[in-house]
């Protein structure tokens, strides 16, 4: 594992906080601007943490499906987010590691872990507060041009194996 500088950590934290804020505020298109062309967005079903080609997940979006998910939200007719849930999430316990062999040559790559708690007001139906706690793993890519993108996000919910309320937002 290579040493990660304070500056790199700060830059990555800023990216993650921005990602969290855009998700909280349902700014889907701006959020999509933070992810790369090979983005994989994965919410395993709790225990089913194995191979997503064999086990059913809550979400297992490749880039194309994620694009459709965001397009569906942007129609303004996605009842599950009509109106969008007021949300706030807290991101903590951030650990940053540099990946020795980046997936894309000539870039720097970071494996990042964090914990989060998301509070969601289910404004479309029950008007109750839903709590979504979990851990999250990101892969972040830095290109020599200074472009920073997320290309992997795995959200492991604490209660992923239990019955989950409708989750139409970006977690």
């Amino acid at each position, binding site marked *: 594992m290579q040493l990660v500088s304070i500056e790199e950590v700060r830059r990555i934290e800023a990216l993650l906080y921005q990602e969290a804020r855009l998700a909280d505020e349902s700014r889907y298109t701006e959020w999509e601007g933070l992810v790369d062309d090979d983005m994989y967005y994965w*919410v395993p*079903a709790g*225990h*089913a943490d194995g191979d997503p*080609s*064999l*086990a*059913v*997940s*809550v*979400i*297992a979006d490749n880039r194309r*499906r994620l694009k*459709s*998910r965001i*397009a*569906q*939200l942007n*129609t*303004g*007719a*996605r*009842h*599950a987010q*009509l109106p969008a849930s007021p949300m706030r999430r807290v991101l903590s316990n951030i650990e940053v590691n540099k990946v020795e062999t980046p997936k894309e040559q000539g870039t720097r790559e970071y494996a990042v872990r964090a914990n989060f708690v998301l509070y969601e007001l289910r404004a*479309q*139906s*029950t008007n*109750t507060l839903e709590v979504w706690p979990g851990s999250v793993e990101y892969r972040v890519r830095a290109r020599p041009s200074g472009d920073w993108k997320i290309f992997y996000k795995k959200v492991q919910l604490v209660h992923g*194996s*239990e*019955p*989950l*309320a*409708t*989750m*139409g937002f970006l*977690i």
Partner: protein
Amino acid sequence: MDSSPDYSRLIQSDSVHASLYTSQAVYREELEKIFYRGWVYVGHESEIPHPGDFVRRNIGEEPVILLRDRKGELRVLKNRCSHRANLICSDGKGNAKNFMCPYHGWVFSLDGQLLDVPYPQGFSRDKSESGLVALPLVDSYQGFVFASFNAGAGTLDAHLGNAKQVIDRAVAMSPVGRIKLTAGWVKHKFYANWKMLPENDTDGYHVNFVHASFAKVLRSHYDDAALQAEEDLESETIDWGNGHTELNLGPSYKNEMVWLGYTDASRFPGYVAALEQAYGHGRAHETLRAGPPHTVIFPNLFIAEMNIVMFEPRGPNECVQWHTPMLLEGVSDDLNERILRQCEAALGPAGFLLADDGTISERQQIALKSGNAWLDISRGEQREKEGPGDIRVGHVTDETTNRGFWKHYRRLLSR
């Protein structure tokens, strides 16, 4: 307890009363008369292929263990120690040689017999009378396992009735006639009454409205099957009797494999060849065109095209919909992975479809909270047709399926 509600008044042929979705008394009677007195779906044989394999399930609100015993027989045991009512098994699935209660160490065999009681001198009862409760009726059809707490529930054959040919159609999607539920389950919680699940899942009228956002961004088989002008829709609603209901989308499909999101079957030549080999050219290509059924089997199983879904009641105002992809035996991993990805796209808390259905069901539950309203299920009464074997067939946007569900429900609850 209050006297039983008057179901013949609350359930009319063209409308049902809101209290049926909100009343605690109605809910308790449903548990007794539907979930504890009749046949209920508990799982699939492919989930427990080997002796000792088990899965935890709930029938109504009773925790049970579905397992395969040493001899390979299917058994369903109450998941409750005969001593002081502790859960015998807390794992969701696994393999066991026997079950030991973690409270006082009582040990039970896979057929529920009490084998061992620690500190035996203080135990004065007969071990043979202190076993786990085994459900008296357990039977399977094409690998689908059903059980009943009631020895007098009749045969599974009689309960399934016309639904047997629906199950036959589902397993015939596999060239070897077998499915496998090995991908695990996602559970989606609705703050709504459980009956919204069977009713909405075979409602063809809502698709254009609840799923408008889906239809705008993705081409799918629902474009042909449920999103045309009224006179162009060729799909049907079917009341198969015994509360089993179907949204028959097949008549709308012109090309093969549109039900899996393709315009033809060229992507899967091996699958086509295997089906032809197994069933002959004509039947194979009819299967490839018409696709799998979209059918609720009363009270808690939904064969949801290439998915298997279970309904779990949790009080009048909450329920859980479980889902897993209906993977096929005898096909390529590639095809099964496509089935798995389609399952995730459609179903569950973040599904392109079910997230919206869940939200609408919860809004319905809020709107009928007072329990003082009527819900209209009359649509298409005047154009419904009688089919062979006493079935009823309606236009895909008609409430033939709701009427079929409620007719059977009224018969059971009025007993």
